[in-house]
């Protein structure tokens, strides 16, 4: 089973929830995948340092100047303006390239090969007793995160329980992260920002046809807007984590949130039962 933990707004508690879900439910075959590759934090929260690091590249064109006759076909077909043909050479802008491979395939002289352009790494950490943490980490300066997210998610595909800690927002990176998931747990907070961004995330999971449920974090009693949204969309509220200064403090210091708020264990176990129920 693959559960994506997402939110529209950043800082609502995705990483708190996904790391605690793993702590509560995980066994040696479970895996937590941090696909917030721009700013991965699950390792910090779990206090884990990666044991292995695997570089990830994506393809970019590599032009053989001896074979190229500067015909301009590659620049003409590139939809992303990643190739510019000058009078004496072809310039390649790796950061604009989407690695589609069209230029290499269609070059009349076969003067274009593809080479790897490093975009980031996949870090793997063993968590004794509750599985493996896989973290995608984008190189600073790289713009495109989906290829790294895809590569990170392709690891340990057969694990019985896969929890995906998603990036904020609702762009292609979030879609890549939640795709193929059996369920999407949306973590929100009872503020106007949380509500606004949650509505966008609900649109995203509906588009993908992934069943979802809500978890209200930092709950302080008043959540009528979220109840109304849940009623309107039919996406159930699975649980509420009460606002707790002790939990916030512990989390900020990198301490175990389940010790700071022992009731969290029950809240998450209950949510998992509801998810299993919804999927059966």
């Amino acid at each position, binding site marked *: 089973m693959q559960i994506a933990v997402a939110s*529209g*707004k*950043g*800082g*609502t508690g995705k*990483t708190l929830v996904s790391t605690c879900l793993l702590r509560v439910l995980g066994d040696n075959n479970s895996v937590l995948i941090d696909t*917030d590759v*721009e*700013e991965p*934090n699950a390792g*910090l*929260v779990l206090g884990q340092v990666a044991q292995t690091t695997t570089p990830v590249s994506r393809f970019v064109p590599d032009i053989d100047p001896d074979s190229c006759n500067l015909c301009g076909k590659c620049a003409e*077909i590139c*939809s*992303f303006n990643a190739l510019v043909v000058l009078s004496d050479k072809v310039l390649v802008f790796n950061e604009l390239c*989407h*690695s*589609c*491979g*069209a230029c290499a*395939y*269609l070059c009349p002289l076969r003067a274009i090969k593809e080479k790897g352009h490093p975009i980031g790494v996949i870090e793997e950490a063993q968590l004794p007793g509750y599985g493996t943490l896989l973290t995608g980490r*984008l190189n*600073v*300066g*790289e*713009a*495109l*995160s989906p290829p790294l997210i895809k590569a990170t998610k392709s690891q340990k595909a057969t694990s019985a329980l896969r929890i995906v800690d998603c*990036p*904020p*927002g*609702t*762009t*292609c*990176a*979030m*879609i890549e992260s939640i*795709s193929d998931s059996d369920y999407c747990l949306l973590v929100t907070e*009872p*503020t*106007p*920002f949380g509500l*606004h*961004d949650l509505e*966008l*995330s609900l*649109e*995203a999971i509906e*588009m*993908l046809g992934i069943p979802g449920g809500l978890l209200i974090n930092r709950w302080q009693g008043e959540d009528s807007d979220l109840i109304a949204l849940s009623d309107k969309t039919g996406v159930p509220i699975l649980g509420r984590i009460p606002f707790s200064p002790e939990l*916030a*403090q512990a*989390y*900020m*210091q*990198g301490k175990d949130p389940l010790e700071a708020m022992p009731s969290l264990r029950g809240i998450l176990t209950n949510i998992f039962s509801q998810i299993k129920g919804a999927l059966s």
Partner: protein
Amino acid sequence: MKEILFISGKGGTGKTSLTSSFIHLADNCIACDYDVDASNLPILLKPQQVSNHDFSAGYTSHIDEETCISCGLCAELCRFDAISEEFQVLPLSCEGCGFCEKICPVEAITMYPRSSGHWSEGVFNQKQKLFSADLRPGEENSGKLVAQVKNMARAMADTEQTQLIIADGPPGIGCAVISSMVEVDLIVLVTEPSRSGFHDLQRVYQLMQLRGIKGILIINKWDLNPDISQEIENWAQKNDLPLAGKIPFSNVIVESIAKAEIPATNPEVRKMLSPLWENINKGIGC
């Protein structure tokens, strides 16, 4: 004209609360929200006379069923798994590269422009302009939409002779953030004293350095963890990153946001943020 950008790396550190407050403290400025996939600044600034403009960037391919001979070449060559077994295009996966269109032996594939969302212009505080955008969920091109918002705001600043643009940035370090940094004069880094906040700050700081832009730091909610706050301060000092100030955790700010109000409309918050605003102004050379 000067442009100030607020970013944080990590989401939820208080960027929008602070950006809206400094927009309120500035004498006159144009406001921008570059967080195009979760735009929250308009919730606080409550713009009037909002006009929305469609934005399309890139293309999606379409396979004509009548013409298609199901040869499978497009599906085989597509790097994005965007063509289903029934030879239909999956718009969420399609990157719009047009490879399939060019190799289809029977010309069954066409590319059509893709609507990515819209950008908006509105008026707040009677006469000030706010530029923002809403990317459609699942869309790419957030960087291009950010660039569109920026171009419109800068053109308006030129026309109206406005001297300052204050922009709320997106979280992360990817395409939207890179695009929001273009032509910026000063970056205000908003962090919180947590392990995650500090880690994310350092990555976004590296990106800022790569782009050669000047920065200034705010530690928000510093008293929730004085130790990490001090660690961040030491790190900033070592890196010659000036500190605009530290803000204690404030229930007044939390309550303002719950009511969708700009925190600095409260006199207590205004008083607390004024010295930081002076430091930011010094940072930008005003």
